[in-house]
């Protein structure tokens, strides 16, 4: 587990940018944390790091948004509204992102149903309102060098 304090929004985006440089096709990232904590902001930074030119918009209304202009495709998902793993399977998100990176907001709720090889990132709100990112690598991710991200 790696903990990275992010006093400002720019810090959160910078962590995401650095993480982007380490990503490979088929990578799965789960973002956990409440409303307004910075999950979409983080994904915006990740997209910038992947060289994606389009504006990353919230996926909450449409559930899934895809970006293909970067050096890896990005599939951005919000599963807050889904009630079951079946509904998630219907979206075929993992197939869509097989050749790229899948980022799932509120993904912690589905963690048990998803492939074991993933990176979970918890967004913790500190008492002073700043954020702490807690990176928890699972499966093959435990062998990745995440030292560069911090």
């Amino acid at each position, binding site marked *: 587990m790696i903990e990275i304090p992010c006093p400002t929004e720019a810090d959160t985006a910078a962590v995401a940018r650095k993480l982007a440089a380490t990503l490979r096709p088929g990578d799965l990232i789960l973002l956990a944390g*409440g*409303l*307004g*904590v*910075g999950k*979409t*902001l983080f994904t*915006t930074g990740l997209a910038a790091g992947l060289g994606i030119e389009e*504006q990353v*918009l*919230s996926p*909450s*209304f*449409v*559930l899934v948004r895809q970006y293909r202009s970067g050096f890896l495709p990005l599939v951005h998902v919000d599963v*807050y*509204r*889904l*009630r079951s793993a079946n*509904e998630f399977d*219907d*979206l075929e998100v993992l197939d869509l992102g097989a050749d790229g990176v899948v980022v799932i907001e509120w993904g912690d709720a589905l963690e048990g149903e998803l492939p074991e090889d993933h990176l979970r990132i918890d967004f913790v709100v500190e008492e002073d*309102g700043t954020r702490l990112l807690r990176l928890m690598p699972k499966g093959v991710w435990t062998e990745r060098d995440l030292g560069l991200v911090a």
Partner: protein
Amino acid sequence: MNPLILAFETSCDETAVAVVRGAETLSNVLGSQVELHARFGGVVPEVAARAHVESIRSLTHQALNEAGIHPADLDGVAATAGPGLVGALLVGHSFAKATAWARQLPFVGIDHMEGHLMAPRLQFGDFEPPMVSLLASGGHSQIVHVDEWGEYQTLGSTIDDAAGEAFDKLARVMGLGFPGGPAIDRASDGGDPAAIVFPRALPDRPFDFSFSGLKTSVVTFIEKAQAAGELPSLADVAASVQEAIVDVLVAKTFNAVDETKAPVVGGGGGVLANRRLRHRFAEEADKRGVTLVIPDPILCTDNAAMIGVAAAHWLAAGRITDWTENVDPGLVLGQPLT
């Protein structure tokens, strides 16, 4: 020439069918899926597509019956080509194409956002652009300058959440239902819009929106107020949240009106059904002496009459969609259908 059009709109969660003659609505029927999706707190694409399939045929009969039109009288058939949910779009688009093919009628695919831009013509007659229009819903928030019909410039748009999405999420924070816009609109009755001053985002970008900062600010405010036992009334919180969203939408739209000197200001999308927003638009338009063309809420939310009026315009101008053209879920206003 005022073509008689059978029109379909199935881009999201409303199955809508209409018959229009030019800019005159002969029927405008809707099979709402709101109750179906309320359990999920929002629209679920697969659920929406299946529900469209189940209701489109009977709604078509209803639309033709209410209009008193026999399919043999039609001049064309139209459907939304995008943007929207791909499965949902395909239902209306395929059904419309098949109907047109069977009747040997021209088919016209319409951009959903152009439908919203043209919807005011159904109510206000043939006003002419240039016009500035605010398109705001669960999936979109943008300010468009209509140079003339078919020539659209997007002056600004959201950089994170759509306005309707912000309403939905903030309603969730306040423990109100889905859809969030109407829920906050109702909850704010009797509340003081100035009770809590939430931040107005992107003051340095005149036409763009951002609602993620507001979200964070409301969550933080409610948590702190709850911890201190000083939570204001729900009406005050709702009215203040609504004011923060409405204020930005109004300010940026009228920035565009002032900048372009457009003589007409309009709007479309579900957020334009908000009572406070409509009131503020009326005030600002009145102040400037510009013509306000925001139609009744039923024509602001998704409907097929708006697709019909756009299709009638293009059919009269000789623009027909090729049979090979498909839906485009990522269609961008002003760019050709692919």
